[in-house]
């Protein structure tokens, strides 16, 4: 393999394949409005988002580089965004490419989070490409002496429509030179009826190299003279505010490992060694005594303690007269639901490589947000922000904020102390034990219907804590106190998913924010909180359907809010060949394996999703296996249905894993689920068959497609459990420990 270019980024390449020279002034961090009304982020040593050259460069060989501020996570967003650019520019896919994302050279489009890369990045890349095309046509018009409206473009060749022998290429017009134009976002975009590339399942650009074993993941990056580093921490985090405190450190305990060095900064301890195995052994054998107070409620006491907390309450939504509507309702269902902490746990633990010099630092890592990571690393190192460069390498799938910032900061701290480049890879127990977990939730839900089965009143109270903002490495190395994001966003009770799909005249959503100091460190885990929301809501909807003797599909149809929700509901039902059922199947008491089927709706913040689940329940072992999951997703204009189907297929499997298997366990002092045995995920033999249906709406805005199926798929499994057994489970994951007692008690 080629070694990584280990140099501070400079955007001064004018040749094919390179970027254009951008002279950037240092400006204050500020948000600029674009014509699409979406905030763009500017800041020190960032390309100016208001210049066209920040987004697109045309090369002499008639190809284009598109500067995409979003990271490839294996979701295919690079392919989809290049498709959009190629479409607007009338280029072939083989004529467009992107560049490795790094600070200083690439636009700051915020994080690759909340399924936003195509939804938020797509419109901007589309309009930048349209603007570049407009400028190119103007140049061609002068060159060919023909008005713009008599020109045609194909594969970057502009020709006179009436005389195709007269032509000029984009590369001949501007190759290697700057546009030097403002990016206004006002150029007309191609009507969707003219699309030939967008809407096609173009194969993903990253797949061939991954299949050939040539793809360079972050874990594969090696540079000359680097040391291998490992962090040394207690096995499993304790309460977020407590971090971990060193009581004693015995450096002599690793004296026998030649070349290994201990690096300590306050409570941050790491080891470095030229040889990786020496670093691994040193981290394992170094004797450290930690103070980890018994601050946690423990897994068993978690929800009880959350309910007892003094919370900061906020009414998220209060429509109509909820109290009066409940009084008038013909049927009311009221229940409490519980969701666990769940972990990101990338399959390959996070890895980062830092080269910290006295006045600058270059950090390679798998962050979802290079500029945010740069800001935090600058703080940790005590360097000015513009002296820190962050370069992105794809790691193992992250599904939200796993330990990538933590690993990057650890590498930076170790390199600063060692005076050499340091590569840090987390061990399995580091990643499992010190993750920013998806927070647990406690929910009280109450929904009322009238005699005809119309939802008339809805109330949801959710208890959970917010997301930690101070990474563990910073907390330990600098003593920075734990802090949580103020919210609201996706960390609180959300009206995007709760109730959003149904026409509900009287509705109240209340968020009870728990102080997270004495809980685990939390953050965004794919489709944050939606598995808990959907688990509670969609089971309640099924219970109401049963009270009025309606098929759960029919009940949803009667209460649904609009055509697009109805579209995905019907698409999922049709794919599964749904037949009416009275929300509970008749089962022979003699059968050991019970089968059941459930349906559910849900989303994250945009898009529309529905799922059907077919499951089997083994009455003797209490094991549930999801046999077949069906998902339908309407994400507006779907740029690449193949990529979206791959995301949907992954979501269906991951949702089954989270509903059936995944639960972070912890004692009063620390997390105890530290590997794949203590934190099991779905395995090959348990994997469902999947059917995915993309509901395409070329005329609608692009919206997210990486999260929205998580909630409905998980909830459909829970509903299928009731269908199979007549029993309701109100706490997940639906493990044998919960299934067996439910089967032993009388049917609901």
């Amino acid at each position, binding site marked *: 393999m080629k070694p990584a270019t280990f140099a501070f980024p400079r955007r001064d390449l004018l040749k094919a394949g390179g970027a254009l020279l951008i002279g950037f002034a240092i400006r204050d961090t500020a948000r600029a409005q674009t014509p699409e009304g979406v905030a763009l982020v500017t800041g020190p040593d960032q390309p100016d988002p208001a210049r066209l050259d920040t987004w697109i460069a045309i090369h002499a060989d008639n190809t284009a580089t598109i500067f995409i501020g979003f990271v490839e996570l294996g979701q295919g967003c690079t392919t989809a965004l290049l498709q959009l650019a190629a479409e607007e520019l009338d280029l072939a896919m083989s004529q467009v490419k992107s560049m490795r994302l790094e600070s200083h050279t690439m636009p700051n489009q915020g994080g690759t989070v909340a399924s936003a890369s195509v939804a938020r990045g797509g419109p901007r890349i589309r309009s930048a490409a349209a603007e570049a095309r407009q400028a190119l046509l103007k140049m061609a018009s002068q060159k060919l002496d023909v008005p713009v409206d008599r020109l045609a473009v194909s594969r970057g060749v502009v020709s006179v429509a009436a005389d195709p022998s007269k032509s000029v290429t984009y590369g001949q017009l501007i190759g290697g030179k700057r546009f030097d134009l403002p990016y206004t976002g006002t150029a007309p975009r191609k009507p969707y009826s003219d699309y030939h590339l967008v809407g096609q399942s173009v194969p993903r650009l990253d797949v061939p190299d991954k299949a050939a074993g040539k793809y360079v993941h972050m874990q594969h990056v090696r540079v000359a003279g680097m040391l291998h580093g490992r962090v040394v921490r207690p096995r499993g985090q304790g309460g977020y505010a407590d971090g971990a405190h060193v009581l004693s450190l015995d450096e002599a305990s690793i004296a026998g490992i030649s070349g290994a060095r201990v690096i300590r900064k306050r409570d941050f301890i790491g080891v470095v060694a030229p040889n990786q195995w020496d670093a691994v052994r040193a981290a394992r054998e170094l004797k450290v005594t930690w103070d980890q107070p018994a601050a946690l409620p423990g897994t068993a006491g978690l929800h009880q303690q959350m309910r007892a907390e003094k919370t900061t309450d906020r009414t998220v939504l209060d429509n109509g007269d909820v109290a009066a509507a409940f009084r008038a309702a013909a049927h009311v269902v009221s229940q409490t639901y519980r969701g666990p902490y769940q972990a990101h746990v990338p399959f390959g633990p996070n890895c980062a490589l830092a080269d910290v010099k006295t006045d600058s630092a270059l950090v390679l890592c798998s962050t979802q947000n290079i500029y945010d990571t740069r800001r935090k690393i600058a703080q940790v190192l005590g360097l000015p922000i513009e002296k820190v460069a962050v370069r992105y390498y794809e790691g193992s799938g992250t599904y939200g904020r796993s330990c990538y910032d933590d690993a990057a900061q650890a590498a930076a701290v170790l390199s600063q102390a060692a005076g050499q480049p340091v590569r840090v890879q987390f061990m399995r127990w580091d990643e499992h034990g010190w993750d920013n977990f998806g927070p647990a939730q406690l929910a009280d839900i109450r929904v009322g219907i009238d005699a005809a089965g119309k939802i008339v009143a809805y109330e949801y109270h959710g208890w959970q804590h917010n997301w930690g903002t101070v990474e563990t490495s910073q907390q330990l190395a600098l003593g920075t106190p734990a802090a949580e994001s103020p919210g609201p966003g996706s960390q609180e009770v959300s009206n995007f998913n709760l109730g959003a799909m149904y026409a509900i005249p009287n509705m109240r959503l209340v968020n009870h924010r728990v102080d997270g100091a004495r809980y685990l460190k939390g953050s965004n885990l794919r489709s944050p909180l939606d598995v808990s929301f959907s688990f509670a809501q969609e089971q309640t909807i099924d219970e109401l359907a049963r009270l009025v003797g309606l098929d759960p599909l029919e009940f949803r149809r009667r209460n649904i809010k609009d055509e697009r929700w109805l579209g995905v509901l019907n698409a999922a039902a049709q794919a599964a060949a749904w037949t009416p059922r009275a929300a509970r199947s008749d089962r022979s008491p003699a059968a050991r394996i019970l089968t059941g089927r459930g349906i559910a709706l849900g989303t994250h913040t945009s898009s529309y999703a529905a799922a059907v689940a077919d499951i089997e329940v083994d009455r003797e072992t209490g094991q549930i296996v999801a046999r077949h999951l069906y998902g339908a997703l309407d994400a507006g204009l779907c740029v690449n249905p193949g990529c979206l189907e791959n995301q949907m297929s992954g979501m269906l499997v991951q949702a089954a*894993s989270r509903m059936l298997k995944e639960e972070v366990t912890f004692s009063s002092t620390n997390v105890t689920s530290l590997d794949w045995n203590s934190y099991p995920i779905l395995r*090959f033999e348990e994997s469902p068959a999947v059917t995915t249906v993309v509901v395409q709406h070329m005329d609608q805005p692009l919206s997210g497609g990486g999260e929205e199926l998580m909630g409905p798929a998980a909830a459909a499994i829970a509903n299928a459990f009731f269908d199979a057994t007549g029993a309701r489970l109100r706490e997940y994951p639906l493990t044998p420990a919960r299934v067996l007692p439910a089967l032993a008690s009388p049917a609901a």
Partner: protein
Amino acid sequence: MAGGVKIRVNERLWTVNAAPDTPLLYVLSDELQLNGPRFGCGLAQCGSCSVLVDGVETRSCVTPLSEIGSRAVTTLEGLPAWYARQHKLPKAPVLTPVQQAFIDEQAIQCGYCYNGMTVKACELLSKTPQPSEAQIRSAMNGHLCRCGSYPRILKAIQRAAQASPRLAGQEVRQ
């Protein structure tokens, strides 16, 4: 530093400097700079680091260098040549049918589990050229994927089985 241990990897003999207790994974990734086997858990739980040792799928993260001896190690990088030897092809293909099927089925998301999945699938098809779905699921059960790509990997292995020439009457060389 012990040094001077000889190992056969992808049909080449290498002299490596690592101490004999070093897990094979670190020798392959650091000394030989191979990117196929990769660290996942260090506990033989996930299959990320898998290689073939004399044709048998082996977790390199818990296999000390000293245990390899004269046995042939094949990594992802050496699979096309290994496949060609098995099938007595005159020349190694660019990709094995399993790898090509992963592309054709777009079975990859982040691609990190891909090494182990591919190594294990190649081992399976070398022993059971036409596996049933249950045989595939059972063989692959020790290999985890966090992205949830099992359904597509299943299809890819089924496709590869169809694409592979049968080893009719031939004893499979281990």
